[in-house]
């Protein structure tokens, strides 16, 4: 159970190799120790993260197989995971791919892969997750979204549109789970220095996974609905969202 000060005892990470998820869970286990289950397409790829978490104080770390685009497996995956490990205080939906924008603009398969992972896969696994979280009557469900979905840009609109889709889904989901005992939180980081963005030119207001982790942990304890990282991103995006199309297209960041 999460305690009155936001300390958690059990965490499930979907996307167990995510740098942001690792940074977040590391902070959680450093405080009280917790049981962590890392789910990824190749569970063995979670080994480095598992070692880091054990060293940071996790009481147990398990790696399990989860394939975001194998939709048919999702219900069984959620059932098996909850049956084996019991309640989860936190479920972190952290998987996603950036993809190759240029290729995705011409290759339907490449575009579909991005959308199926980031949107369809996330929706598909969220449905059974929510059933279990509702049944346990408590817990926090966190989606790692992105500012890219807030106003979709020319430079990464396949990724951006997939994030816009899942972000919208979670907004409605959060409303549907009000008074259920389950807290839904959407995290919208700006440019984060991770292996996903390695080699890309950093955008203004870029942050580290650690900064995102701090914001996530604080947001969970406070019961926030949406967390922007850095916080100033909320106002930047509020302005960008309302800039006329003709102007927006000429901005260097678009």
């Amino acid at each position: 159970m999460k305690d009155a000060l936001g300390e958690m005892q059990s965490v499930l990470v979907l996307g167990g190799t995510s740098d942001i998820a690792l940074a977040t869970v590391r902070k959680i286990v450093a405080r009280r120790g917790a049981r962590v289950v890392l789910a990824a397409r190749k569970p063995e790829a979670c080994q480095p993260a598992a070692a880091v978490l054990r060293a940071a104080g996790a009481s147990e770390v398990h790696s399990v197989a989860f394939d975001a685009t194998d939709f048919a497996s999702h219900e069984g995956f959620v059932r098996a995971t909850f049956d084996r490990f019991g309640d989860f205080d936190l479920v972190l939906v952290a998987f996603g791919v950036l993809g190759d924008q240029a290729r995705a603009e011409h290759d339907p398969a490449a575009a579909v892969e991005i959308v199926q992972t980031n949107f369809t896969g996330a929706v598909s696994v969220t449905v059974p997750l929510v059933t279990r979280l509702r049944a346990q009557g408590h817990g926090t469900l966190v989606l790692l979204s992105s500012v890219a979905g807030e106003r979709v840009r020319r430079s990464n609109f396949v990724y951006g549109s997939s994030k816009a889709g899942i972000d919208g889904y979670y907004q409605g989901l959060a409303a549907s789970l009000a008074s259920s005992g389950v807290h839904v939180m959407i995290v919208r980081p700006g440019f984060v220095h991770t292996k996903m963005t390695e080699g890309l030119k950093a955008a203004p207001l870029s942050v580290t996974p650690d900064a995102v982790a701090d914001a996530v942990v604080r947001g969970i304890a406070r019961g926030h609905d949406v967390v922007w990282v850095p916080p100033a991103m909320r106002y930047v995006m509020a302005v960008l969202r309302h800039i006329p199309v003709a102007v927006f297209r000429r901005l260097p960041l678009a």
Partner: protein
Amino acid sequence: MASSETGAPELLSGWGRTSPTLATVHRPDDLEHIVSRVTAPSPRGLIARGLGRSYGDAAQNAGGDVLSCGNLDAVLAIDVEKGTVTVESGVSLDTLLRVLLPLGWFPMVIPGTSYVTVGGAIASDIHGKFRHGSFADYVDRMRVVTPARGACMLEPEADASTFWATSGGMGLTGVITEATLKLQPVETSRIVSDTERTNDIDDCMARMLDRDHEYRYSVAWIDCLAPAGHLGRAVLARGNHAVLDELPASDRPTARDYAPRTLLGAPPWIPNGLINFLSVRAFNEVWFRKAPRTPQRHVEGIKPFFFPLDGVRDWNRVYGSRGFVQYQFVVPFGAERVVRTALERFHAARLPTFVAVLKRFEHDSRSLIGFPMSGWTLALDIPASPALAPLLDGLDELVVEAGGRVYLTKDSRLRPELLGAMYPRLDDWRTARAAIDPENLLRSDMDRRLDLSGAGRRHA
């Protein structure tokens, strides 16, 4: 009736309003209904709930059943020969006082609020300003519905292990449905109280040790935000039941009246941050200054002496939506430094802590995981914030080293691994509990968090 049979989903939290979870709430009105619920609860178990005054997660059960016992509100019998009263477990102490005082009877142990049920008072083995016993010490017998044995009547000597596992047992051994309580005769509903100010914590403790024996009830209200050099300055309030002769002639016709009024309610929405360092320091200053500079004796009612906060309905809402934590610990006599260190650390952290409560116990709870033990107990309320965790964790260490413990009924954030050190009879309690609930059908969020029952956190 239909709704009480099927139950309704409800978001429940403790008095501190932290960590709400969803449960199916049933409101049983007879024993049969309770037996059927307790012996066949939902897969996520069941816990009883009274008036929800436990500060943390003791009376909530995420995803499971909660038996809200408010309908068990009958005062069944008063035995004037033996001086006992038999009540259903959902009877509040407020109701009890309304019935008993005009007849010249008074419970042996009264806590700091009248809005607790008798069932909750036993399950927490609560204490008050009386130093020589806690609530369960004055329970002659009680009826408990347990998963393995159904309804059974327990007496403290004949059924010692089950009785003392149930008292203070946080509801995890069964649902208490009825109890017979020993009473004390009183001539009036008034308290003759002496109030005095103390300079600092050492002065306060010295005065308590020196003259507590003259009083049945004793409490010190400590200003945690006092200026430097006055750390732990306090208002010491001690009293005895007034006899008829001590009342002014004009009050004698109403000598046994109990007429508490709820003066006002907290507004439904209060912004976070209203309770901050400056506002609380100002409040504490007023609290301290309104106490007389030189010791004064006066006659006052039950309510202002025992239940000063009951005058404001839902006062817990002043902390805003984030809620608050009450930290209460006890350390043996000789470990006064822990009390002092705690006050120093709260002061240094500049936390907005309203007046803290310092009391002494001169008895040990007989409950296997009961709280009271001979020594000093300090309790204070603090707005919930993640930054509080390291501070309280650090104080827990000092409490454990001194051989003390924190109070489960107030707890919402203890580290589970300290439980055994604080409650040395925990294994005896688990054994006694296993005999009446072998399948762990009784569950609460507190049990999930602290693994009190030892059933394992893995199995939700």
